[in-house]
């Protein structure tokens, strides 16, 4: 099937770019100022978006869970405790990952893609600035810094939204909502690990799509679409893989 063929080529291309970037990083570190500027840019541009989307996610999650809990148990005091671990290790990183894939992924692909079609990347190469060194490297490092930060912010926002919603809808006592008993170090580790992986991969995938852009505005449009789809899919697939491994590490079906 041609869709599978496409996915395979894409995966190979991304892997190669990842390897090239790693090599470039070992050769020379990009100037710290550039990386921080990029990281700040990524964070800044996405923060409002993350706050809104994850806030609503937290609200929905707690509302649904609370509703079921009330219907079945008549008691919503354990909501906060129960939803927090899921938020920290699963919904938080996955949805932050998807949102970053959407926001930052298209951003990077559009930037790099339009530079390719207007021959600016060729001009960069003429001036001694290879695209991997000059464009991809700083963005990958920036993602590594910014995405975990966004994970913390997003998870926090979802948690707070949950507190607000359960109090309003079920009169849950905020003191009982704020309950970290069920959240363990392993959950935080899983969430953080996912955030780091997404932070590295999403810029690479988006840059790869951008560098493949061909043929004017149409090419840029195609590149940005490809970036968001590939990055989103990668987030979901990796989420499952990392989650499955973590599940196994926690002791699997005997946990």
């Amino acid at each position: 099937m041609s869709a599978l063929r496409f996915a395979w080529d894409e995966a190979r291309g991304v892997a190669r770019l990842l390897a090239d970037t790693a090599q470039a990083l070992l050769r020379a570190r990009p100037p710290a100022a550039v990386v921080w500027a990029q990281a700040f840019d990524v964070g800044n541009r996405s923060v409002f978006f993350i706050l809104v989307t994850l806030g609503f996610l937290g609200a929905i999650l707690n509302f649904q869970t609370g509703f079921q809990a009330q219907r079945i148990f008549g008691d919503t005091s354990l909501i906060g405790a129960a939803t927090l671990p899921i938020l920290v290790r699963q919904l938080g990183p996955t949805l932050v990952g998807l949102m970053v894939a959407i926001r930052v992924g298209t951003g990077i692909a559009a930037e790099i893609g339009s530079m390719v079609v207007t021959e600016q990347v060729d001009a960069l190469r003429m001036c001694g600035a290879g695209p991997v060194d000059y464009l991809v490297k700083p963005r990958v490092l920036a993602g590594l810094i910014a995405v975990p930060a966004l994970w913390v912010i997003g998870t926090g926002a979802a948690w707070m939204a949950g507190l607000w919603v359960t109090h309003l809808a079920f009169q849950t006592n905020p003191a009982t909502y704020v309950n970290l008993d069920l959240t363990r170090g392993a959950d935080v580790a899983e969430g953080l690990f996912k955030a780091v992986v997404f932070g590295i991969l999403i810029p690479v995938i988006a840059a790869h799509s951008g560098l493949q852009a061909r043929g004017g505005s149409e090419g840029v449009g195609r590149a940005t679409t490809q970036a968001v789809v590939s990055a989103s899919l990668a987030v979901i697939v990796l989420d499952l893989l990392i989650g499955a491994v973590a599940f196994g590490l926690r002791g699997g079906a005997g946990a």
Partner: protein
Amino acid sequence: MSDAVARLGAGAIALAETVGALALFTTRVARAALRPRLDRFETWRMLYRVGVESLPIVATTAIFAGAIAVVQTGANVVKFRAYEVVGWAFGFSVFREIGPLLVGLMFSGRVGANNAAQLSTMQVTEQVDALRALAIDPIEYLVLPRVLSMVLMMTTLAVIGNAFAMVGGIATSWAMLGVDPWVFWNSFTEYVTLTDFANGVIKAAAFGLAISLVSCHFGLAVRGGALGVGRAVNSSVVASAISIFVLDYFITWILK
């Protein structure tokens, strides 16, 4: 300090402008929808393309989503020995929440982005102006077929996605939790109601409407060349995602 406030204010104004523009666009589309002169050929073509384009992505996402749902709740299932409830819990959360949400986000990425890219390229190359010069209303000719097909497709894909998610869920709970597929299926059919299903379908339709309107709006409102096209796609997926979450919340709240 005042600089930060000024920027916040500017941001708020920009947001209000965007929301306002979207609202205006929606009314224009609604008005055109009242006396639809749909290009039937165009609409069918679009339905086919949208469906075919997004099926592999949606199917893959759904299978993985189903698997993820099981893996994440797996520990609790084992702890409480709640094997019989797995099917119900799964069906409930996938049909109502995870299914429409993830399919919606994927659809926005695949079809919404593509749509915005196409329309913005047309706008930048003056093809939309050419249509107007030929006394053809771009809203009727370009937007309406897209909105219609995207709403229909999104709803269909959500249903198909649910089926694929089931497959992923059954397989994963069997492989990782040792839950017999028959047990799974039983609890599923026993406890999952038509309301749960309808809930998800309504959400899917709403998401489809939002994604189509947003992507068409940002596509046609593009400014600048190649970079403008990239930005249009960016704005489209971002605004779609926000719309999806906001709609999800309000529909969940209303349908209780």
